[in-house]
């Protein structure tokens, strides 16, 4: 009797309406956002390496940043870009920012505006230069290896880059003491091959979780000195800078959904196994 009922239950579970699973996922995301559980966030060596490099550079060092993403990756890359940019501003480093994705510049501009509220003396042209978007991809990377002013005659705001005090001390990629790139695709590959490897510049990568596995070989080969991977990486960086933000508040939801997915996969596999065994038994009985 029990042997007959069990597969029925198992079959019902395996044929569960996907909308029930979606509803569970929605609840698992929404509830921790309203009532945070404050689960611990462990900092990984890959993220710590990027943080330590920026932390240990003497104030006024040149840092290059490339924000190669668009609003589709905003939930992951925006919090980490803001955390890294805040760290750079706090350490008084000189920052030059480029964008190789056409829909990216507005996000960087928004991030700068938000940080200016925290650092009112952080000035365009002196402390940072936001060069904006330039078409060409690889050609732009090769170009900034020679000169920022030639590749970007004007910055995002329309000011002449040649007249900027920051550009007088930092006018090409080779003069960077460190580079951080935020990547939602494979533009980082081009930065490594045509930029940082050619000009011998240390680079750390802030990447979306989807592309993170593609960047780990560079970490293994020491072509990247650290990786900030996905929302988890962003939250880790916020922990290191001691300024909790969007990523930290989202990590509870992330953990709960992961647990849900984990149990769903395990349960589905156990039930699929039970079903297979039961079907085999029934086949034997019928034979």
């Amino acid at each position, binding site marked *: 009797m029990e042997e007959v009922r069990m597969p029925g239950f198992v079959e019902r579970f395996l044929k569960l309406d996907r909308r029930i699973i979606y509803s569970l996922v929605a609840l698992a995301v929404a509830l921790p956002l309203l009532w945070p559980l404050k689960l611990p966030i462990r900092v990984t060596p890959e993220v710590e390496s990027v943080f330590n490099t920026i932390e240990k550079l003497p104030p006024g060092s040149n840092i290059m940043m490339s924000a190669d993403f668009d609003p589709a990756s905003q939930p992951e890359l925006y919090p980490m870009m803001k955390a890294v940019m805040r760290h750079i501003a706090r350490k008084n480093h000189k920052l030059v920012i480029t964008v190789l994705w056409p829909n990216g510049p507005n996000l960087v501009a928004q991030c700068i505006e938000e940080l200016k509220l925290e650092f009112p003396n952080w000035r365009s042209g002196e402390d940072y230069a936001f060069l904006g978007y330039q*078409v060409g991809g690889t050609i732009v990377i090769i170009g900034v290896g020679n000169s920022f002013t030639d590749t970007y005659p004007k910055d995002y705001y329309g000011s002449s880059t040649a007249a900027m005090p920051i550009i007088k001390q930092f006018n090409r990629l080779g003069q960077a003491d460190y580079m951080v790139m935020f990547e939602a695709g494979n533009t980082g590959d081009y930065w490594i091959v045509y930029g940082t490897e050619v000009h011998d510049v240390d680079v750390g990568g802030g990447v979306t979780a*989807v592309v993170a596995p593609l960047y780990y070989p560079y970490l293994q080969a020491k072509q990247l000195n650290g990786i900030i991977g996905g929302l988890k990486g962003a939250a880790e960086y916020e922990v290191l800078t001691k300024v909790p933000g969007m990523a930290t508040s*989202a990590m509870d939801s992330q953990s709960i959904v992961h647990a849900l997915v984990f149990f769903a996969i395990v349960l589905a596999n156990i039930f699929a196994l039970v079903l297979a065994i039961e079907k085999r038994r029934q086949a034997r009985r019928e034979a």
Partner: protein
Amino acid sequence: MLNPAILIQAESQLLPWQQAMADFLGGDVMVAIGTWIAAGLTLIMFSFIYKDNPLFRLGEHVYLGISAGYLMSLYFFNNMKPQFIYPLLPFLDPKFGTPEGTVMNLWVIVPGILGIFILLRLVPGMGWLSRTTFAFYIGGFTGISLSKVFSGLLLPQFYATIDAIPYRVTNGPEFILLLNSLVLFVGALTVLVYFFFSVEHRGFVGGVSRVGVYTLMIAFGATFGYTIMARVSLLIGRMQFLMFDWLHLDRLMGRLAMILFGGG
């Protein structure tokens, strides 16, 4: 269609009904209207989870249309104008005559003609001209890439596979490092064998290639895990937007807490 003039007026001189609207929408009228449109479109896209419907199709087409239009205008105003039109006809530059104005550069005619050649693919009988541009582009880019890809990608990755193997093991961490390096080395070799199709995958080669398949499956599993994390992050981002930027549930929760537990 909203009249921008009304919105500008709403920001500067608010009539009572406009003030009431601004209060209802939650502050800045422009931002609030944008938020409501974005929230509506997000819900329309989420409606696909229930089932396919005309609103979802509409949302999809609106997204594609706006993206294409935005990109086209971006390329025109950020690239075509400052890098082609102004150097060719500098008097069109609003800063013409000032030190920041564009200087005439007739060399841009060459890439301009090559660009027009690509568009000629649309003209019957003249499409062959586009091959000139592609030949120029592919030839130049191959020349630039070949040495850099070899020295910046292939060799460092090749060295890293061998270089990671420690030649001396005296303690636990070094043993773990050795283990990692061996996994990497064996994994790289076996996957290469799996993709080597000139020898039949039987016997010893078949066994090695099977190890390569398992290595690939483990790598795909790790990638799948990361992909779930990425997709959940996107969902969290949208939920944060809907719950806090649109519905202001954080404020509502704060008020509820004050009512329930007192204070202030």
